[in-house]
């Protein structure tokens, strides 16, 4: 799985309440989550996420298990998320909804060009490469299928 885009930097311990606030959860409207993603961090960010790679600090996606956090990022057009470590529920959620994650410690430069390859296990920020922690074969399969729903559908 290959992806590329401009870098958007966010800090460490980015909790899912900040990715999508609790007040937007009572709906099934995915566009609404995309419109309010990161609102409490920077209200202008949601409109700038299309085609970007979000680079976060450690413990990305900690806190509430709300899958809407990963969905909001994907719906907003985020191509992938890179962080030195992810909180485990966010990690599973992102893979399950088909949002590529790269676990590797890169330093973020806002607007830099980012490329990543999950099969080969690396990410590059402005040409500077870091080696990613490999995903298990099953996780890669789920990602390749586009998430756990299509993965499950194909298997039946």
């Amino acid at each position, binding site marked *: 799985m290959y992806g590329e885009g401009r870098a958007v930097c966010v800090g460490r311990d980015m909790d899912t309440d900040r990715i999508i606030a609790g007040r937007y959860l009572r709906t099934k409207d995915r566009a609404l989550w995309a419109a309010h993603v990161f609102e409490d961090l920077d209200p202008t960010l949601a409109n700038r996420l299309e085609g970007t790679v979000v680079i976060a600090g450690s413990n990305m996606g*900690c806190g*509430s298990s*709300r899958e809407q956090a990963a969905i909001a990022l994907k719906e907003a057009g985020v191509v992938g998320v890179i962080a030195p470590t992810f909180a485990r*529920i966010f990690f599973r959620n992102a893979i399950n909804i088909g949002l590529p994650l790269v676990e590797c410690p890169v330093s973020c430069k806002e607007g830099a060009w980012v490329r990543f390859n999950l099969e080969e296990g690396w990410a590059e920020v402005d040409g500077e490469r870091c080696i990613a922690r490999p995903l298990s074969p099953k996780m890669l399969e789920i990602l390749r299928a586009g998430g756990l729903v299509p993965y499950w559908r194909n298997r039946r």
Partner: protein
Amino acid sequence: MATLSERILGGPAGTYVDVRVDRAFAHDGTGVLTKEAFCEMHCEKIRDPQGTYIFFDHIAPANNSTTATLQAELRSFARARGLNFTDIGEGICHQLLAEGIVLPGEVVVGADSHTCTLGAFGAFATGVGATDMAAIWASGGTWFRVPETIAIRLTGSLEGAAEPKDLALAYVRELGMDGANYRALEFVGDGVAGIPMAGRLTCSNMAVEAGAKAGMFYADRETVGYLAGFGISATTQEPDDGTSARELEIDLSDLTPLIASGHRVDRVQEVRALAGTPIDQVFVGTCTNGRLADLERLARVLRGKKVKVRTIVVPASRLTLAEAGRMGIVETLLAAGCVIGIPGCGPCLGAHMGVLGEGEVCLSTANRNFTNRMGVGGEILLSSVATAGASALRGEITVPEAADVR
């Protein structure tokens, strides 16, 4: 020689295992998306309806008609498929499962991050998201990476006004918000025996605040006795020494009342450091501290006195409320000026029943103080019940005295 996670999941740390799930649950918050994913998977049948639970606790009763409609859909889904369905006012999912349902050695998976609470019984209990839960509904199982373990070795016993919540805040401070990421916590050592089930649930509950996948106590005499109260016979589990990847020692006798502030649950200091800080609201409840032992403690602090700020008390379950009524606790709290809410999550997630306004500060017995969680522009401080009670009486952060609570 194996950790409790290794024994229950059936593989050494670091390996991937497929396991059968004994109890799977979702609530009105996560159940909606789970149902969507389940239907999109073109699945019809829930594999194990008897082990599948839906609880309405997060925004229950519904706060507006959008919520009500989503809940109505989920309610009929649960009923049509014969799932264990628990409607509004019964209580918080994690508490209801602690009232004689979860047993030592089980694999418990919930679509809620605080599922780790149930590790207090010696079960492997962990949270997942909605799509993972949908796959569990469909297949009856899931995959895990068997976690490495951090042993938290407890010695001594709690003294003064310190309570199990202070232990929880202390280990989160030591580990940091991601210090236990991908790992399990095991609470071991001589100090464990003196912590009652209610306190163990409080400690296991906050494991996820350090990033942990699970927070477990080995089932012992206390566990077996507690379950016997619900008519269940269980057996104890014995820890193996030296199986953990890391050890953290905490002497319970050293603990003093603690408080988390600054929108970080690991920014923990002694209550004394913040004494005198004005507060606008006190909230006692949640899956961390809404149990009978907590309400009893609060009543002891407030008996015969009046609170100075609005104080919202939300029992963790209907049983908790009923017993608090029988024991005269409800009367004491009402006389002290508290508001008593409907059993459930209450204002914990900032959806209803006590949302904060711009610039307001709430001292809460919950587990999270993320920015804006209880309302845009509001701040949450986290403490024990004793600290919350003492502070409610003064309208400012106050160090509880041992004499107030014992």
